[in-house]
């Protein structure tokens, strides 16, 4: 019988991976539940170990199982060949997602065998300041959205003196179109543990929390399992690998509030309170969790760190363009033929991602708009597909890279409805602390409704522009401050959708 791999990733499970794994086990095969390779359009992807490497078949249904030639890895209508040679995977630059899909995610032995804990091993022999310097050298910027240099943040916490410091991982991943954090936690959770532990060792923090949204039950369970295994193998907990360094890690569940992805709201939530945003200053690096100096980073920021320590900051910095260094795991989502995870160096164009890797729309109709960077990100028109993925290029185009989520819409999209949804989402998820966001978003929905109904169109468009300005200028955080971005981009690039009577007359 053969050794086969079927992902335990929840996206793979969402299209039948459990049933396929069960059928394979029943047929007598040794089934290993790996992470997903990120070729989500091919899930459930079954791989069989052969003398020619791991041969893949996909997408596999339970009905297909009996006919798969697993003893040989031979021909079949679903055969994809050696998965490592698949262009979708081969043309990526996988620094962070190097192991995901290859290993059993919670096996420490697998992790170590594939280069895991090399970064932490190195860090354990370095002074905190030297670790921080390596991260600074890499040019790594926060992957949660704002793109703040990670090294500078760590240095602030390192230099602060306090009886207790914390490391908090923001795994709230609320942005539509994003799932890379989830894939790390379900597919290579030990890498996140290693990254956070390196941060703890670097800044002198002995306690960490991973704040995971409750919508991710599989990620929560897998993280907990991986933490227990790391503790048992002495890579986490007291006296890591026999050194005098200790780091304790705990998982905390969110409770369905988008705003808890904002870092200070997350801190409130971690303290057991309502998730309202704190004014800055003080910055969390100085007064964070329970008022103590705290490193807060996104999952992908921490996940990039083991590579940086193992291979050196310069090796990471070698990838990328301008001030956007390294790679970003992009997430191809929405109306796209080949959705999944594509890790590439910054500088890859939107077109290469969406048309090259993604293969265009799922429906086969022309692309009309692409929302990049989550619900607070701009709608980019098809005419701007040649923009390189780079923080500065996107900012100059009044757009943002954010967490790397790319959501494709075909020509059937109604952009006025999308603008309305942006305001509606802000109204639903506002923490309620400031008026421009709390009230402005509800007013925004009403004004867009009037515009679409053709009621005093020009006056209401002016009103909407004013309202957006007020939200941008007067909001305490980026929830209210950036909601105008998708709204204004929709009006700017797709004005015809806000002029229904004219549009109907023209048709």
């Amino acid at each position: 019988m053969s050794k086969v791999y079927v992902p335990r990733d929840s996206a793979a499970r969402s299209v039948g991976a459990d049933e396929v794994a069960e059928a394979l086990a029943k047929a007598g095969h040794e089934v290993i539940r790996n992470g997903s390779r990120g070729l989500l359009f091919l899930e459930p992807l079954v791989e069989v170990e052969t003398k020619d490497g791991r041969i893949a078949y996909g997408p596999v249904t339970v009905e297909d199982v009996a006919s798969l030639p697993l003893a040989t890895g031979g021909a079949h209508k679903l055969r994809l060949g050696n998965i490592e040679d698949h262009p979708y995977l081969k043309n990526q630059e996988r620094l962070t997602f190097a192991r995901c899909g290859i290993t059993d995610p919670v096996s420490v032995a697998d992790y170590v065998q594939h280069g895991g804990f090399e970064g932490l091993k190195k860090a354990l022999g370095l002074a905190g300041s030297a670790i921080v310097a390596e991260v600074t050298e890499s040019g790594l910027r926060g992957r949660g959205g704002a793109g703040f240099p990670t090294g500078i943040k760590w240095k602030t916490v390192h230099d602060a003196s306090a009886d207790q410091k914390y490391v908090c991982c923001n795994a709230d991943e609320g942005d539509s179109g994003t799932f890379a954090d989830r894939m790390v936690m379900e597919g290579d959770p030990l890498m996140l543990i290693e990254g956070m532990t390196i941060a703890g060792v670097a800044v002198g923090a002995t306690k960490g929390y991973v704040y995971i949204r409750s919508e991710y039950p599989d990620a929560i369970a897998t993280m907990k399992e991986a933490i227990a295994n790391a503790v048992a193998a002495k890579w986490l907990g007291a006296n890591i690998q026999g050194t005098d360094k200790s780091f304790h890690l705990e998982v905390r569940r969110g409770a369905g509030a988008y705003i808890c992805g904002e870092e200070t709201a997350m801190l409130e939530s971690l303290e057991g309170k309502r998730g309202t945003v704190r004014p800055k200053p003080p910055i969390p690096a100085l007064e964070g969790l329970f008022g103590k100096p705290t490193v807060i980073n996104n999952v992908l920021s921490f996940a990039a760190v083991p590579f940086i320590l193992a291979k050196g900051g310069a090796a990471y910095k070698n990838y990328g363009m301008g001030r956007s260094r390294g790679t970003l795991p992009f997430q191809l989502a929405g109306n796209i033929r080949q959705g999944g995870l594509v890790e590439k160096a910054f500088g890859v164009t939107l077109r290469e991602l969406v048309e090259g890797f993604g293969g265009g729309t799922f429906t086969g109709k022309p692309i009309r708009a692409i929302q990049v960077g989550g619900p607070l990100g701009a709608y980019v028109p098809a005419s701007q597909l040649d923009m390189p993925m780079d923080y500065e290029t996107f900012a100059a185009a009044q757009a943002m890279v954010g967490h790397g989520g790319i959501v494709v819409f075909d020509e059937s999209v109604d952009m006025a409805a999308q603008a309305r949804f942006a305001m509606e989402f802000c109204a639903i998820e506002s923490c309620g602390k400031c008026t421009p966001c709390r009230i402005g978003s509800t007013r925004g929905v009403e004004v867009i409704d009037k515009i679409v109904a053709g009621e005093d169109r020009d006056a209401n468009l002016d009103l909407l522009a004013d309202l957006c300005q007020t939200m941008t200028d007067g909001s305490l955080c980026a929830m209210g401050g950036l909601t105008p971005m998708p709204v204004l981009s929709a009006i700017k690039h797709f004005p015809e959708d806000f002029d229904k009577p004219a549009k109907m007359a023209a048709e």
Partner: protein
Amino acid sequence: MSQKTTLLDLSPREATAAREIALRYGNRPDALLEILHDLQEHLGFVPEAALPALAKALNLSRAEVHGVVTFYHDYRREPAGRHVIKVCRAEACQSMGANELVGMIERYLKVKLGQTTADGAITVEAAYCLGNCALSPAMMVDEKLVGRVDAKKFEKIVAECRS
């Protein structure tokens, strides 16, 4: 106190559950969200009657606990159906017809989002991204994610929930 069975008789059980779960977390007030999650898993919802005991155990005011329970979308104030289906309404799923899917679901189950079917089998709710945006439209059935949902898949899910 009345000798008859009234709703109030439930409160000792709820208070006991609240105290036991809080104790598991060392009565730490920062663990309030975890405690509420566990309480909801245990009782099916977060009953008002459990809150005073919880406040006392964690040394918080009732207003503070109440504030947290009402702030977060996850906590239910009343029992749900036997199964909970969360339908994603966020952008990636919209691009694949989530709005039409919601309309279909509401007609099929004869309820609106946020409501429970007449037979008590299913509560349907809105969710905003389930992290399955490459396989949209997505929904979550209890704790299980489902991708590429269409009418046929949905009808099968409903049949399973009702069996």
